[in-house]
């Protein structure tokens, strides 16, 4: 089922918001205005933006370390994101977790984790809750994380239990300095679904409509009780982390091609289809600009935490 024109414009706006957010984050990091460990999802924006139009507001979202785009697409607190990046008390985790531990449970979103692969087990746990509550889980991770044993253990358990989980792989062919061919046996991660008797598919992860179509089909089946499905989205990340920018597009010609730029690619598509006009585009970009400006002002107005803040918050129920 194609998304409606309105939904497509929504996806486009989300992609732009993610792109703008990640570029600003890189810029502020380079200037030394924000610090810490940050993993932008530049080049992968199509995946979070498309998925967010497929799952429902009541569903659960669990990602690994590159979760910033999913946080934004899910509609998690945007002001609190920026306060977090600035390490301020109004950050979504009060400035404690930083960019790799973003979580907004008001949106049922655990979009941060720095131990690669652990999200698979956690998402599977969320799957038991989802089954009971009549909702589903979207679980996201890089292809590298599928080489952890916990990936196998989780998919097997979810399949046996018929848990309502869409497992999504963001396949960008890179794990820090490693390329897939050095570390990973077999061509496609999606084929592993066969082993668990679940459905799997591999799609162009820079193509919004391809992701949307397959994800929507899987979500429908999962809601009908099929048990988990595995969706692999083939994409490319422009950069590994803010402190390792060697792949940023200005340095790599290839990245400037529309294939490598899902935002540009979707914009072109929307224009050809007559969905996006110049004036709409201007308006959408203005929305994004204002949202970012508002969040930056919010963040800068938020106080820096006291250095002992949180020391009494290690237990939820102190004894």
């Amino acid at each position: 089922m194609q998304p409606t024109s309105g939904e497509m414009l929504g996806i486009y706006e989300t992609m732009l918001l993610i792109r703008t957010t990640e570029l600003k984050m890189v810029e502020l990091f380079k200037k030394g205005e924000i610090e810490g460990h940050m993993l932008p999802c530049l080049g992968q924006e199509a995946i979070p933006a498309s998925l967010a139009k497929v799952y429902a507001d009541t569903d659960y979202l669990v990602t690994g370390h590159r979760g910033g785009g999913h946080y934004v697409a899910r509609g998690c607190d945007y002001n609190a994101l920026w306060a977090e990046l600035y390490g301020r008390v109004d950050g979504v985790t009060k400035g404690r977790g930083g960019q790799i531990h973003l979580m907004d449970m008001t949106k049922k979103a655990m979009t941060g984790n720095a131990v690669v692969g652990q999200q698979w087990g956690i998402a599977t746990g969320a799957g038991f809750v989802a089954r009971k509550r009549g909702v589903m889980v979207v679980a996201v991770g890089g292809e590298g994380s599928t080489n952890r044993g916990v990936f196998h253990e989780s998919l097997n358990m979810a399949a046996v239990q018929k848990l309502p989980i869409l497992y999504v792989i963001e396949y960008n062919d890179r794990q820090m300095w490693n390329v897939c061919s050095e570390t990973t046996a077999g061509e496609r991660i999606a084929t592993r679904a066969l082993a668990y008797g679940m459905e799997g598919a591999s799609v162009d992860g820079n193509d919004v409509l391809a992701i949307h179509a397959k994800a929507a089909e899987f979500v429908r089946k999962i809601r009908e009780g099929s048990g988990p499905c595995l969706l692999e989205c083939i994409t490319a990340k422009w950069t590994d982390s803010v402190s390792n920018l060697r792949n940023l597009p200005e340095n790599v010609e290839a990245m400037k091609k529309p294939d490598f730029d899902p935002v540009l690619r979707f914009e072109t598509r929307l224009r050809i289809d007559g969905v996006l006009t110049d004036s709409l585009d201007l308006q959408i970009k203005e929305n994004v600009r204002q949202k970012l400006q508002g969040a930056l002002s919010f963040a800068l107005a938020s106080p820096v935490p006291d250095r002992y803040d949180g020391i009494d918050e290690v237990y939820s129920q102190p004894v």
Partner: protein
Amino acid sequence: MRQMKFVDALREGMIEEMRRDPDVFQIGEAIGGMQGGIFGVTKGLEEEFGKDRVIETAISEGALGGVAVGAAAFGMRPVVEIMFGSLMTLVVDEVHNQAGSLYYVSGGKIPCPMVIRTCNWMRIISGPHHCGNLDATFMNSPGVKLVIPSTPYDAKGLIKASIRDNDPVVFMEYSPLYTLKGDVPEEEYIVPIGKADIKREGKDVTVITYGVGVHDALGAAEELEKEGVSVEVLDLRTVLPYDKDAIRKSVAKTSRVVITYEGYKTGGIGAEIAAFIAEECIEDLSAPILRVAGKDVPCPSNRRLIEGISIGMKDVVDAIRKLMA
């Protein structure tokens, strides 16, 4: 004497052992190529020894731990790199249950000569999953040796001893030390496992520590010398099994003890050392034993909050002043 960075001395030690013994091999994530691991410790090794002895792997810590035990049990000497110390949680079974018990449970028939190297990087801003500290986990693992060098000299001598050792060694590197320069002789040497080192002689207080804590203690000693307090710095070097004689001797001399370590205070290395001193050296003490250690809080991803939970030279100075008051 030749000056060398910690990271280069460590690498030189591994290279010498790989040249000496063809059964020594390296395995880990992103350890090959020109990268040579996240801190470049294994840089250039693949070039010299090839892909069969410098083995690049997927993100598969569990398998890395298992591979170490299996390769060691069947006769080789694996050196595994786990990218950072927090990930040691993912090989606790392999180290604690498998490697730690193998020699004993096989009736003394199967030694397990493996080294798992990793790096504690608590003094960066990266949050609880990167900047945790599991030193105490391995202090509580019978059959395992826990080796933590503080200088380039010790790093080289101890990695060589660890690779030659017939028991499983967890070799912990503290990231702030990689760039530290120090004396490293040209001729071959070994630093024996199980021997502490007095890094500075003193007569009023003993600071017992290891790794990066040694440098906090040395800084504190220098500071306090101006006030006429003479501080002895005892570097454990091997944290398990630790050098009881060296501790006894130093405590008998100074009668006051501060133990400092970066891990969480409760149930940490200091708890064991303090308990040992209380059991065996209580008569020598003229003051309570103090611990200077991290707070029992997950590491935040925020410079300001890190200040609130971490320790440094100043905390060691304060503790010593308290003991001398």
